[in-house]
């Protein structure tokens, strides 16, 4: 069973990735793939790759409110008793998965990059410690929840465009007595530049050490005439505006070249840039996960490399 994430108009790409995996597992385990669609029944059209769409409708579900989704999903789990529930590992998964692990009394594996069935048990590989360690785990029992890192699986092909069977589940009564409400949806601010349209990016991570040091990488970005972007820690420290953030909770970019300076490459960052055509990574830690996706790398200190790069670029 997959929880569909949507904006009201569009089912997310991540949802299609999960449906693909759900179909594969359903085939292996001799079951069916189901997608839970909350609040927007019309989107069932976009979910043709699943066998069943389980729909719950209620005014409280028209937009994403954590408690409403948790109540509706709990109801669905109780009624449909799936073998596994799959969700993305982003905001919705971070909101709901661990709570549902308690309510549904099911083991939960988070940050999964691999998921399968070995004949006796459901197994997953989860990435922890900034992506440095891979833990192979087993989910014991007859049910389980897995939250999946973006891009871990390939999307279900839209080939089986038969309209799936739609099952309607009555909304649980507690949806009328929520303890939270949505005040306002805030779209992304567009007063800073748009890094998603840049041909190339110079991107900086924790390795820059201080806000003052940004000057030297900004100079490189200026010399190349491209924007400066960053990984989450630099943004959280307030050193660059939010619009410059590359990663799961920032922007996904696909430039012709991505120069990563002092970025370790935690899965949440890689999700935002791994499809760049040319990735050059500079990190003094030879074991940094960024080198798994970079095409070229160096363990030189960025403070030694960048001034030389600036000189060469300026000619």
């Amino acid at each position: 069973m997959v929880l569909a994430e949507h904006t009201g108009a569009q089912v997310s790409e991540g949802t299609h990735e999960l449906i693909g995996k759900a179909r594969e597992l359903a085939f292996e385990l001799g079951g069916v793939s189901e997608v839970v669609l909350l609040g927007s029944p019309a989107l069932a059209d976009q979910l043709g790759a699943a066998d069943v769409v389980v729909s719950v409708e209620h005014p409280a579900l028209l937009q994403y409110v954590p408690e409403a989704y948790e109540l509706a999903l709990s109801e669905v789990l109780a009624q449909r008793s799936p073998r596994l529930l799959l969700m993305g590992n982003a905001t919705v998964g971070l909101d709901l998965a661990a709570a549902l692990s308690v309510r549904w009394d099911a083991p939960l594996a988070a940050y999964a990059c691999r998921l399968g069935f070995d004949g006796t048990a459901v197994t997953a590989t989860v990435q922890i410690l900034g992506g440095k360690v891979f833990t192979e785990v087993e989910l014991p029992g007859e049910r389980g929840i897995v939250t999946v890192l973006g891009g871990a699986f390939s999307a279900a092909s839209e080939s089986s465009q038969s309209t799936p069977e739609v099952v309607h589940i009555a909304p649980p009564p507690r949806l009328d007595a929520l303890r939270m409400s949505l005040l306002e949806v805030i779209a992304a601010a567009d007063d800073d530049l748009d890094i998603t349209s840049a041909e190339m990016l110079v991107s900086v991570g924790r390795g820059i050490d201080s806000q003052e040091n940004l000057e030297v990488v900004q100079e490189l970005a200026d010399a190349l005439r491209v924007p400066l972007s960053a990984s989450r820690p630099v943004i959280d420290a307030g050193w660059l505006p939010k619009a410059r953030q590359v990663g799961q909770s920032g922007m996904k970019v696909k430039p012709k070249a991505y120069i990563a300076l002092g970025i370790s490459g935690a899965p949440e960052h890689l999700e935002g840039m791994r499809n760049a055509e040319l990735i050059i990574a500079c990190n003094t830690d030879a074991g940094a996960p960024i080198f798994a996706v970079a095409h070229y790398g160096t363990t030189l200190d960025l403070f030694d490399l960048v001034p030389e790069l600036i000189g060469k670029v300026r000619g």
Partner: protein
Amino acid sequence: MRIAVPVKAVPDLVEEIELTSDGTSIDSEYLTFVLNEWDAQALEEALLIKDATGAEVVAIGLADDPEIEQILFTALAKGADAAVKLVGTTVARSLGPTGTTIADRAAMLAEYLAAQPVDLVLTGVQAPDDPDGQLPSRLAALLDLPHVSVVVSVETTGGSLTVRQEFAAGRSQLLQVQMPAVIGVQSARQAPRYTPIARIKQAMQTGVLTEIEVSPPPATNGLVVRRMHGRETTGQAEMLTGSAEEVADQIVGLLRARGLLKG
């Protein structure tokens, strides 16, 4: 208003992580432990609320976490009003360096908070070593409290709680939440405040860590760890060698070959 900030010690990710010889656990002997960076953000957000409203902030750690005393004394030095150390007998499982799963941590915190209720629990949205799921929503479910995660601002003006929840691509939303509630903090409204070593040392002299015993039943339905490993492939990156000047040359060559150098 009382705000609880559960905090966790985690391995410093700057260090190299080594595994035990049987490959089922992390070798914590040479690791440095630091405060989970997301918990540091949660503590900062709590202190910002305290600055604005005079709320009481209590930091809570688990006695079995390495370096937890240092972490709690630092919280006191930064402005927390109280620090609590939970001592419990839980079944340690080798899911991480501290041996205590998030499920067990949540059970211990839930027992304490059920007895000592607060208005608001602020804790980091995640930790680097929480493969069995994140603390905030698990804790909230155990206490049957409303919860919101990936929050970047928490305001309690006028007795009601307003949080900003963040999604991908710069989108966010404002939610009003009834208290008591549990909030998973992604980042505070400003970077965690600095406190000088002298102040921490003073807290260690005069600060009090209250020890509380908790004994929840061990959490069931945990994961079974088969093995752990580092990145298996040697990495696909072709490593460039030479002096900084030589490597810079090679990089410029790569960019030029793709027509990315202007002028």
